[in-house]
């Protein structure tokens, strides 16, 4: 999360990243808004919503660059917003911002299509960094998130059976990158450690994220074939 600013992709268009806030707590929204508007010139908050329906309508209308999405909300939460908006707005990037760091919550929104997951104890500067990174096409992985993903892929019972190339989802290199992330390394430090470029680290992390979403489909098809549904 402590990425060197020079590694960032430049914000597009008028130079600012438009951000939309979705959270059912107004107090928290105004707090985030204040943090982002103070001292983060390249991030602009264009709107906020307090419920799933409101969020779906407003995001459709505003078309922001990045949506900061709460995980726990009445009527379905962040995952529901993602389900409804992802297919029709593929250019909008979603970053989950939640107080929960329970594995199920994290994995659920990542699988629904969020590009990253940060917890609400994050500082304003780090949050702005995370917004820039997801907007630049990168994935934001906290050490804890990296740990969850490793857990899901490597150690959980019922994980991919060995020898199936399609199901053996994480490459060795991606695993190494995730492990270093979980140990608290920054992307730059991982690059130095593994003798690869920062860009390559970002590519690995992004492909892990893609596979995390994809694994849902694999698991689904396996689940279906196990039960002779297909």
């Amino acid at each position, binding site marked *: 999360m402590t990425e060197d600013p020079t590694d960032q992709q430049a914000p597009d268009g008028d130079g600012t990243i438009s951000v939309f806030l979705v959270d059912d707590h107004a107090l928290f929204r105004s707090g985030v808004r204040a943090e982002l508007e103070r001292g983060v010139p390249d991030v602009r908050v264009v709107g906020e919503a307090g419920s799933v329906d409101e969020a779906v309508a407003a995001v459709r209308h505003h078309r922001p660059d990045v949506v900061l999405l709460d995980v726990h909300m009445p009527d379905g939460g962040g995952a529901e917003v993602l389900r409804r908006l992802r297919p029709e707005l593929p250019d909008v990037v979603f970053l989950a911002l939640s107080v929960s760091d329970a594995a199920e*919550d994290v994995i659920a929104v990542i699988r629904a299509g969020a590009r990253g997951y940060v917890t609400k104890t994050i500082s304003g500067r780090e949050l702005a960094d995370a917004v820039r990174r997801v907007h630049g096409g990168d994935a934001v992985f906290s050490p804890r998130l990296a*740990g969850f993903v490793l857990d899901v892929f490597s150690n959980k019972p019922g994980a991919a059976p060995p020898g199936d190339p399609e199901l053996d989802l994480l490459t060795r290199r991606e695993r190494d990158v995730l492990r270093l992330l979980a140990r608290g390394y920054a992307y730059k430090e991982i690059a130095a450690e593994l003798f690869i470029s920062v860009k390559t680290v970002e590519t690995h992390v992004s492909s892990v994220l893609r596979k995390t979403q994809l694994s849902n489909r694999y698991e689904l098809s396996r689940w279906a074939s196990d039960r002779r549904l297909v």
Partner: protein
Amino acid sequence: MNTPTPPLARRRSGRIVAGVAGGVADHLGIPVTWVRAAFVGLAAMWWAGAMAYGLLWVFVKQEGADVERPTPPRERQQALGLAALGVAAALTAAALGNDLIGWIVGPLGVAAVGAALVWREADEGQRRRWTRSGTAGGRNAVLRTLAGALFVAAGIAVFLFGQLQLGQVQFALLAVLATLLGVGVLTVPWWVRLVRELTEERRERIVETERAEIAAHLHDSVLQTLALIQRQSDQPREVARLARGQERELRAWLYGAGGYGRGVAPTLDEGLTAALAAAAAEVEDTYAVTVAPVVVGADRPLDDHLRALVLAGREAMVNAAKHAGVAEVSVYVEVEDDAVNLFVRDRGAGFDPDAIPGDRHGLADSVHGRMARHGGTVRLRSTPGEGTEVHLAMPVRTHEEAAT
């Protein structure tokens, strides 16, 4: 005893028959054996003791479910003996009395035993309903109730045979049966409603209990801490410490392994994960830094080696908290089949590992020594200005190896 006299209530636990004697003893503040003996003595006088006991059983409510009372086996035997003595005394008294009394008491005694069985079953059923979700005692309960009903019927029948002519008995039996049947059919809707209401009531009670539990927890933890924070708002360090501790606890309560809404704790009681979390929490609280542990892999029970690993890891966390001068320490633990790897990393001051004076016991004894004694290894990487990472590796012996 200075405690105020408790209200008269039948004992729930530590009872022999219905808890009446115990309740009376509690109420009067005298030994329960005396009360039992008194009931037995009264029973010898024309069943007066038994009558009193039965009436008290019917009219005195049971005490709350939260009272636990152990019954010593000796007291239990004594009480059972007294009960048997009471019955014998009552029967003897009845037999010694005139014929008519004997005639009435005999069959009625049998009926009373039956009634007692049914009543006891109802009593048990009620208790079960209040404690669990009302799944009654199954076949045993039905058998007991049926046996009781049979006793009552037999007793009444014998009593009536003694008093009436055969034809009258036939008629009376038919009338009774027809009435019972009619009453049963007529009250079906009432029974159905009763069952439905009970279910509804139970559901509401569960929701209510849950709400109360949440409120109690929030009161005990969050509200108390917020009050403390308000009073100490001029001490940012202390406020941060309180808030961190509270966040950790609430998080564990909500999302932890045995967390709220997750049913029973699925993991090992005091496994590696729990021990590490406890160590990290301790360091957090003592040194006012954030320690963020990430654990990958299945939990393991704590054996001597893993306990040494946790202690060494704790020492590494303490070192990072004390010397690195940073607000956050990362801890990563990977549990593999044959080894557990633990990484403690900070982005703080760092140091030159070769330049450490030999008298620094923390690293030498607590980390290196401890790990070496249990067959583990320590790798230390530190660069001045870039932080430190301590890597502790502990091989894990499988159960088969440990057994040999």
